[in-house]
């Protein structure tokens, strides 16, 4: 199992496995890896699996997150890397059975298929099970699809929570909008969220939404915990199991 070991000088402080949830690092005691040092921000960084890779993401920390010697905002981690926050470092152990690239098993197992074919129910179940088993080894929440949710933090909206089940979620005054804005000058279609195979993407409408304080350009992929601001409404994008 992939794990992270928090080290101070050469002493082990804490060790955590990396599961389907992101591992959070920061000064606040509710982090998975709390680091008691003033140089470390309250919520400093997080580590998680994304599409088979282990990723570290800096959460706009004051003093930065470093992988080996390089300051990063977001970086793919490899076995043996060290993440530095303040004077502490976190060793990355991705040896045992971290994300297994799908093609290792696939090349020999699957003949090339040119003609379109449908899997019958039995074969399909087997293939999905095989894939799910792989996912479990890779510490994914395989089998359980995560449900994206918008939680309204503030703004003139009656419903406090929206589950994003449709392919296209519209935020605006339109009666068809999932997240329905109220008020005279609110646009019919302020912004929209498109569910793709690999995640949820926020796109502009008649307004340009802000994600974590920055106005977006084109479409951006939403990450768990992102703050979206549009037309005076603030909301959190989160995944629920």
């Amino acid at each position: 199992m992939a794990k992270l070991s928090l080290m101070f000088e050469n002493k082990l402080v804490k060790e955590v496995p990396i599961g389907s949830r992101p591992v959070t690092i920061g000064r606040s005691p509710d982090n998975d890896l709390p680091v008691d040092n003033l140089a470390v921000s309250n919520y400093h960084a997080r580590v998680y699996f994304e599409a088979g890779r282990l990723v570290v993401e800096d959460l706009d920390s004051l003093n930065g997150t470093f992988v080996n010697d390089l300051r990063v905002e977001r970086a793919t981690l490899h076995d043996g890397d060290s993440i530095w926050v303040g004077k502490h470092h976190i060793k990355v152990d991705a040896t045992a059975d971290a994300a297994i690239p799908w093609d290792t098993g696939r090349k020999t197992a699957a003949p090339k298929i040119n003609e379109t074919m449908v899997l019958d129910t039995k074969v399909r179940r087997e293939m999905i099970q095989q894939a799910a088993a792989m996912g479990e080894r890779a510490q994914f929440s395989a089998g359980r699809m995560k449900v994206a949710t918008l939680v309204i933090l503030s703004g003139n909206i009656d419903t406090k929570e929206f589950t994003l089940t449709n392919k296209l979620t519209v935020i605006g005054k339109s009666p068809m909008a999932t997240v329905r804005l109220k008020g005279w000058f609110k646009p019919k279609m302020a912004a929209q969220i498109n569910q793709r195979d690999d995640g949820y993407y926020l796109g502009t409408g008649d307004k340009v939404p802000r994600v974590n304080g920055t106005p977006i350009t084109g479409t951006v992929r939403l990450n768990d915990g992102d703050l979206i601001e549009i037309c005076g409404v603030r909301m959190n994008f989160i995944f629920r199991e």
Partner: protein
Amino acid sequence: MQIVSSGLSDVGRVRTNNEDSFRIVEALNLFILSDGMGGEAHGEVASAMAVDVINKYCESEKEDSGATVLDEVPANISSRTRRLKNAVAQANFQIFQSAQKNPEQRGMGATITTLWLKDTLLSIAHVGDSRAYLLRNGNLQQLTNDHSLVAEQVRRGLITPQQAEESEMQSVLLRALGAHPEVEIDVDEVEIIPRDALLLCSDGLTRMVTEPEIAGALQAEMVPSAAAERLIALANENGGIDNVTVIVVRFEDDANKGWFSWMRRGSAKKD
């Protein structure tokens, strides 16, 4: 709202027969696209049957109660969408039955992507790996989930979209019409606003042409027939390994009518 649409199908550069079928029913604002499978010309039979059954079902006068759909339907969808879903269920059953009766048709099947517009509400029903896209504000958004093995693996986080594109398993579908007497059908609804464009396409397009290229072609060619021609040309330039079929639909504000027809006149003059 003004609706302009155009569809086009091409055999591609490699195959000798075209197993895709499509139909635009202007009177109903109904758009149907199907990609058939199953050797020796039976793919065509299946996709043509799918298109025909859905067209007839939607055309028939009677408003049905939705009783023929056995599985649960989300409560918030309109009766129109439910009817479209029933039409797809009917198409599935007829292809399945035909394959049972005629041994030479064993194993035939088809994908289906169908859109039906009433006022501004677009009903979507879909099975397989043909796709529907919405181009809005320059953003191309896929309205359907592919029911293919690789797409399912991406959704479960097992492979990346890049790995899916390179996978040898791209042709493996998890659902199609005609394989079983019943099939799970995805339905959805989207509100259409003026200046939106819709694209329905078979996988012969999406495997050959990237999404940014598709978005570019739709934005460059305002006239649907020209956009359709351009998309097919792109697929063939990039290899054309499969049949390519596209339907392009554009929605224009009535207030823009003068401006739009002026622009079309302008482009016609150039020719």
